[in-house]
């Protein structure tokens, strides 16, 4: 019962966060910059909030890290949505997906806002933070580009 309550409360919490994130993203008007369409991505411990669908083309990904930990952002194109792990079972094997990596941002401190310029062709992409344990801790997001 208690466990159920916990899970309900957790689900509620997650739903609330998701709702906030979605509303934030959803309400934000799509903007275009001179270098491409702007996509807002919010990172936090330990999740990535972003739109799920996007038109192909030049994209400016504006990443805000809400913290409290530092986070990086890697964009990998993958048809399966699954990424190979290193031997430790904790981080994605970046060498294995090197050819599929569209772009990456080094770890940014909490509160920072950075931009990543990418050209996305139609397909399925994963946005992730590959710091130790972060991917496994929930920091990944699938993005479909048409």
């Amino acid at each position, binding site marked *: 019962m208690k*466990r159920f309550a916990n899970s309900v409360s957790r689900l509620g919490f997650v739903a609330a966060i998701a709702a906030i994130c979605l509303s934030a993203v959803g309400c934000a008007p799509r903007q275009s910059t001179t270098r491409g369409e702007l996509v807002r991505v919010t990172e936090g*411990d*330990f999740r990535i909030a972003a739109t799920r669908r996007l038109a192909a083309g030049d994209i400016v990904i504006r990443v805000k890290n809400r913290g409290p*930990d530092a986070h990086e952002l890697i964009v990998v194109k993958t048809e399966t949505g699954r990424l190979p792990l290193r031997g430790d079972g904790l981080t994605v094997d970046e060498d294995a997906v090197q050819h599929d990596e569209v772009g990456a941002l080094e770890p940014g401190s909490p509160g920072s806002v950075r931009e990543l310029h990418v050209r996305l062709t139609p397909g399925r992409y994963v946005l992730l933070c590959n710091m*130790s*344990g*972060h991917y*496994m*801790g*929930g920091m990944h997001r699938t993005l479909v580009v048409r």
Partner: protein
Amino acid sequence: MRRPASEFRPFAPRARRTIVAILLTFALVSALSAALSIWTTGHSRHRATLLEVAARQRTLAERYVAEVELVRNGQQADPGRTAALLASSARALLDGGTAPAVAGDDDETALSAVTDPQARAQLMQEQRLVTDLSKTGRALLAKRSVSSVPLTAHERIAATDPVQRVRVLAALTSNVALNAARTIAQQTDRNITSSIRLQVALGIGGLAVSLLLAWALIATTRRQTSLFRSLVTSSTDLVLVFGRGGCRYVSQSVVSMLGRPEAELHGSGFDRFVHEDDRTALEAARETGKPRELVLRVRNASGQWRHLEAHLTDLRTDRDVHGVVLNARDISERVALEQELTRQAQRDSFGSQLTEALEMADEEEATYDIVERAMVEVSPVSPMELLLSDSSRANLERSAVSVAGAPGCPVQSPFSCVAVRRGSPVVFESSEALNACPKLRDRPSGPCSAVCVPVSFMGRSLGVLHATGPEGEPLDSQQVAQLTTLATQAGARIGTVRAFERTQLQASTDSLTGLVNRRMLERQLRGLLRQGRPFALAVADLDRFKQLNDKHGHEAGDRALRMFAHIARSSLRDEDTVARWGGEEFMFAFPDLDRHQATSVLERVRANLAESMSGDHPVFTASFGVTDSTRGETLDELVRLADIGLYAAKEAGRDRITISETLPDGPGLTVVSEKPPDADDKQRPHRARPAFHEAANEDDPHVSGLEIR
């Protein structure tokens, strides 16, 4: 800091305040730098400890995973203790306190609370992950469902393998701990960078402030120097500084006064302009600093001697000066004024004394005496003379001579004298000069200088006051002024006395005969005697005048007297004088004639008298006694001599002229004229036998002495 422009304070001690401000700035900057260094060093040391503890969390998390697996595999391990270490270390990192010792790694470490908000958020996240890790670990070992362990750090672990979950949580814990350590390190680095920047800024600021203050100090010093310079250069006072090598500094006023460049006055250069009589005093003053007050004579650019009143300040022991400062001012005008006042006072004194003396002189003779004494007052060594013209003559006579002798001017008439013609004093520097008076040349005493001051009365020239001196050194202006005063006052007095005498003369004319009276003639005779001018003197008496009066009446007697007076006056030269001596006696004065020449004139009188004895007028004759100025010393003697001659003429039968040569104790008388041959009583010339009897004539109080019957 800045004073109002109106204030002029060259002595204000502003520099001291500026120096203190510079020192304070240096001290403040140094203290702040030292404090910052200490603070930075402390922070660096603390950062190292923090990083050590934060980094240790990763090891502990990994050790925890290993120990959990060991326990699961049935081996001996104590993951609970490691979890406790993780938790207490995470707490100590966040809120300060003691981080526990880890066996085999390090000792207990004291930590202070982390203040940076970002680092604190990360450490709190770490704390939550440590909790999640240890709970998950405990659930695993207790063989409970790991998935049901609530996760508090927002992690969403998809893996269902319990060991994998623990490993993910351990990885997250160590990663967050490392990131927190990195954040702390970056923050500390920023602090240190700020501190270094602050120190550099402090150094630059301190240097800038010091430079500004130093500039202000220089400006203040320059301003004060400028103020002092303006004081010294604008002052009309003369400032000189004397050191061991002579003059070391002269102010601009000295340069402009002497008309020489400054460099030429240094050393002994200034001394050349000092009067040689004052040099010794100046040398002594700059050697010893005394006397404090000094009067110097200095020759200026135009060659004049200027009097300087100097004040000395002895600064030989002053380490900046090493000398004597002389501050002087030109007091020449004051000295000249004082001298002029002294001269004026002397002149005034001379003038007032002269006035008083002259007021007491009632005769010309007395005036001459005073003039002679006044000449000595003017100069006892210069020859001087007063040349005066008689009112009746045009030629000049030497009336007064100073004790130093007479210059002997050969001028004859007043209008031959240039000073008289000009009507103002004339000074001749040298008798040899082209423009000198010709009468100064060829004097026996040789070349000379001269001063000639005209003497006048009511615009009419009376003569000249003449003084001589060595050639080129005439009497000074003071003496010339005194001579002018003397000439003016003497002229006024002489003129007054003469006018008075003339009035007296007019008042003392005999009313019956129109002749001057006895007193006036006496004065004239005395004047001739004093001048040493020769003259003859005769006394006449009408014969048998008493009988004529008795027989024909007083009317006839008066007529006889008037007739004799008329005949006598018309028979004489212009310069001769006849006066009624009293009763029927008359006195004659013949300037420049001797007794024989006078006798000739008197013979003419007798002849004219005899010729006029016609008509109804009773006949009468006169007897004469004659002498001259060579026969006696005084007027009394000469009158007595003439009287003796008259007596002798009477004795010899009257109507004759007898020359009297000597007084009775002398050789005797000479009868030079007798009564005409037609007279009854014919007598030969003979020696007179004087027989005197005293008789006071009660009718005429002026007559006294001898009466011949």
